[in-house]
């Protein structure tokens, strides 16, 4: 119980700080915080499919691109909240259509397929822009202030965390976790694996769609090469793994650390960031399969063991 109070207090303080940042901090700090929140939203929504079902998607960034392009296409035509919401909904539909056949593919084939599909979307869009519209890239004028955009991202980010949290504790979450562990057995016990994977994919696409919408207004200029850059998807995946995909707070830790690292490195040693990203990925895969969150929860173990030693002397003797 005691721990729960501390937890609630910490979360309340964090939320308060996050809420106050645009009011008290400099524009630079606000923009860094906005970036962190954006990546947390991306990585947490990625977790809803990849973390819960084990279907690792390398196409999550594509939904961000779709959201961004949707906003650019209807900019100043539709009111802002509707535009953002619709960007998410469009991505849900895209995921539902694409996911139906794609989710039948398993293991590494699924990973490659998601990567291929997002590249396919990118090049189709480039073709459309160049050959039909005659331009590449779009400019958004009269975008909202960074403070306004910050609050939009904050809301989307918190929404994605809340969604992941609620799913994890629901029957739907149990079905997803059983599919991750052993899809065939899950089906033998009555889980409609194809359906729950499909739902998870569609839900996880909702958030990057909305994030893309907001980020397009932040960037004010978008082109397919940047918003459909596969690095987006890679980064989301690396963040989630760095933090630990078995934990809800894993992507939050991973996204925060990597975004801060990239801010620091881009400013001082440009190009070094990509190198660092590669090294981190190798390190995490080899030495930290549970991620930082796993490391933290394992660190509690020695404390517990010490307690046990005091209570149980026979164990101390053996040692």
């Amino acid at each position, binding site marked *: 119980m005691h721990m729960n109070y501390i937890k609630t207090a910490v979360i309340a303080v964090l939320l308060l700080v996050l809420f106050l940042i645009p009011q008290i901090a400099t524009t630079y700090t606000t923009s860094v915080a906005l970036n962190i929140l954006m990546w947390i939203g991306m990585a947490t929504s990625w977790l809803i499919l990849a973390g819960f079902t084990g279907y690792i998607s390398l196409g999550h960034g594509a939904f961000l691109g779709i959201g961004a392009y949707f906003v650019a296409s209807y900019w100043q035509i539709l009111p802002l909240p509707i535009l953002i919401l619709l960007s998410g909904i469009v991505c849900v539909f895209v995921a539902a259509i694409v996911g139906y056949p794609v989710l039948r593919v398993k293991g590494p084939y699924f990973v490659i397929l998601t990567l291929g599909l997002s590249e396919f979307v990118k090049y189709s869009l480039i073709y459309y822009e160049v050959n039909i519209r005659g331009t590449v890239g779009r400019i958004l004028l009269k975008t909202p202030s960074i403070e306004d955009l910050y609050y939009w991202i904050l809301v989307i980010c918190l929404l994605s965390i809340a969604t992941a949290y609620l799913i994890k504790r629901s029957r739907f979450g149990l079905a997803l976790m059983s599919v991750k562990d052993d899809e065939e057995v899950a089906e033998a016990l009555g889980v409609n*694996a194809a359906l729950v994977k499909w739902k998870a994919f569609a839900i996880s696409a909702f958030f990057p769609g909305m994030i893309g919408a907001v980020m397009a207004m932040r960037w004010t200029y978008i082109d397919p090469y940047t918003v459909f850059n596969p690095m987006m998807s890679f980064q989301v995946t690396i963040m989630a793994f760095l933090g630990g995909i078995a934990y809800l707070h894993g992507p939050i830790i991973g996204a925060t650390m990597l975004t801060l690292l990239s801010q620091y490195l881009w400013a001082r040693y440009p190009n070094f960031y990509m190198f660092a990203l590669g090294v981190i990925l190798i390190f995490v895969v080899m030495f930290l399969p549970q991620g930082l969150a796993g490391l933290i929860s394992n660190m509690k173990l020695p404390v517990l063991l010490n307690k046990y030693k005091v209570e149980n002397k026979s164990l101390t003797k053996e040692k």
Partner: protein
Amino acid sequence: MILQGEKLTKYFAGILAVADVDMSLGENEVLGIMGPNGAGKTTLFNLLSGYYRPTKGSVTLLQNNITNCKPYQIVQMGLARTFQLVRPFQELTVLQNVMVGSIFGPEKTVSMSEGKNKAMDVLDFVELSHRAQALGKTLNIQERKRLEIARALASNPRVLLLDEVLAGLTPTESQKAVGLIKKIRKEKKLSIIMVEHVMKALMELSDRLVVLNYGRKIAEGTPDEVIQEKEVIKAYLGEKTSA
């Protein structure tokens, strides 16, 4: 009849695994399936539980034709199975393992709390409730077998398919498992089909036996009748040659 297989035939890339097998299962009956290695026992199981589509033939469960149903639909219609190689969900707790069965197995929607209570009851029944919070991967083989049965029971099945639940157990453990199957029989209203290599247990538990060899049904009847059959003796011991 609760479950009926008619003219079940399965080819794998031209190789005949099960040929023209008719079988049926009555209310509260225990049907044993025996046969030497490669006789088609597990294939027959997979045909009944929807893992394979038969090349020919049909399966009827409680008057419904389930030949083309998916495994998850078949469970919800009342037929649960265990796997020969036990497969607990490794990263889920024992309780969560059974909850998957108690929540998604029944046809109606079951809430988390309802499913949890049901799962605890089943864990009590198979005497595994003391391990409820342990992760699936930490169980020993005997506990895994019990968990496998518990998950299947949690869906409230009318038919339970047990695929070699005794294999890999020591004689004492095996004795306990036989006790558990007897208890299921006595206390739950369901019919059982079991595939087993341990002849003694099959003889003891089954009301009726079906013997397969090379994918064909070569004998059927009460345990006492079946072991008298020449075909059965031949299949197990080989033909007598003049020495």
